[in-house]
């Protein structure tokens, strides 16, 4: 039973010789991403504090890096790369769609409630 894992990441930019080697490669990648997040989280560079599309630039970076990490954990650790496209789509599209929908509704509503407190007559904190 030879290795039938797909051994390329970054669309073939990096090719690994064995599955074990790929695992360590992905670990290094995840560690670098986490280290970048932590360093940015501690120092919070002034340049990234400006708002882009309604959110701080730094927060966009954190969220994008989190999704990058989630991608590699799912694709390489959970072997999603080796599953059939049908299974992959059933899991990822369902999850991504429902989560985006839920997050949009709740954040929108939260912002609205804040505005009511801020501009309206209701002041009670609960």
């Amino acid at each position: 039973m030879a290795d039938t894992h797909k051994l390329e990441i970054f669309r073939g930019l990096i090719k690994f010789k064995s599955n074990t080697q790929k695992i360590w490669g992905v670990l290094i990648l995840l560690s670098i991403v986490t280290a970048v997040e932590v360093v940015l989280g501690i120092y919070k560079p002034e340049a990234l504090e400006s708002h882009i599309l309604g959110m701080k630039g730094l927060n966009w970076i954190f969220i994008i890096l989190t999704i990058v990490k989630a991608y590699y954990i799912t694709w390489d650790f959970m072997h999603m790369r080796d599953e059939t496209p049908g299974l992959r789509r059933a899991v990822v599209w369902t999850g991504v769609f429902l989560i985006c929908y839920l997050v949009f509704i709740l954040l929108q509503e939260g912002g609205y409630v804040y505005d009511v407190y801020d501009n309206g007559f209701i002041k009670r904190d609960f």
Partner: protein
Amino acid sequence: MSTTVATTNTEGKTWSGGNEPLKASYGKMMMWFFIVTDALTFSAFLAAYGFSRFKFIDSWPIADEVFTHVPFLHGQELPMIYVAFMTFILIMSSVTMVLAVDAGHHMKKNKVTWYLFLTIIGGIIFVGSQAWEWATFIKGDYGAVQTKGGNILQFGEYKTNENGEQEFKRVAVKDFVIVSPTERTNHERKNGLWFVDEGTLPPYQIKDVVAGLEANPNILVRTQILNEEREKTILSREESLAAIKNNGKRVVEGANLEVNEYGSPLFADFFFFITGFHGFHVLSGVVINIIIWFNVILGTYERRKSYEMVEKVGLYWHFVDLVWVFVFTFFYLV
């Protein structure tokens, strides 16, 4: 797909599980079903956290000021360091798990045993760290005063740091209060109304804080409202005294489900609920891993000629890691 070996004697029996629609075995498919539903549960919690945060966007606690502790390093403010360590431990245990799965594909029993053992150790370290983090958060560090409206007032003073700049440094309530005797004792069922309960009494009275504040002219009050630089607003001396005298209700130390010295009680509620739910997942993951580990040692999967069970548990374990990556971002970073 030869990376996923399954010999369950059902080959060819279409209606007995021999049919594998997406080339994934029944067990693995069910694990994916579970993971998708569980992912939706966790995202609902995190979205609810986002809702509450957006609702109080101008007064939410700053996580960097809350989680500053590292074990054995007392009194040093090191935000993020310990959580980063925990994240690394969990990613590391994910790696040993995936190595165990890989060794399983090659039917190497010894390697599977060792990698699974390391995974279990990583999980235990993580849960232990989480418990420590909880204990530190519950204990609190500076203490604060809760107002009649339920808001939090904290204390501090301006000090010159090593660069010669004025910097606002927090002052603990216990360091400046002037304690006065009190007649008030804790109400217990045996000495009062038997059907009424009372929690622990606050360590100090409001008048102790007022006396301490008046005796220390440099101490100022910091509210939970964020200013334009996204920092907590610091009141002037007169405003500070007025705020405590007119609105102070009780002294709060640490955090629990009802009060939180760092700001909105919702922050503490979500922290306990989300990290608690995740910690429970890690704990059950460790238990399942231990069961599977014994099965590996006993040679169950060797006889079955397939280590697919390790792979299925591995999926769960990676999922727990995946959730932590999101909790880490939304609780500690953003």
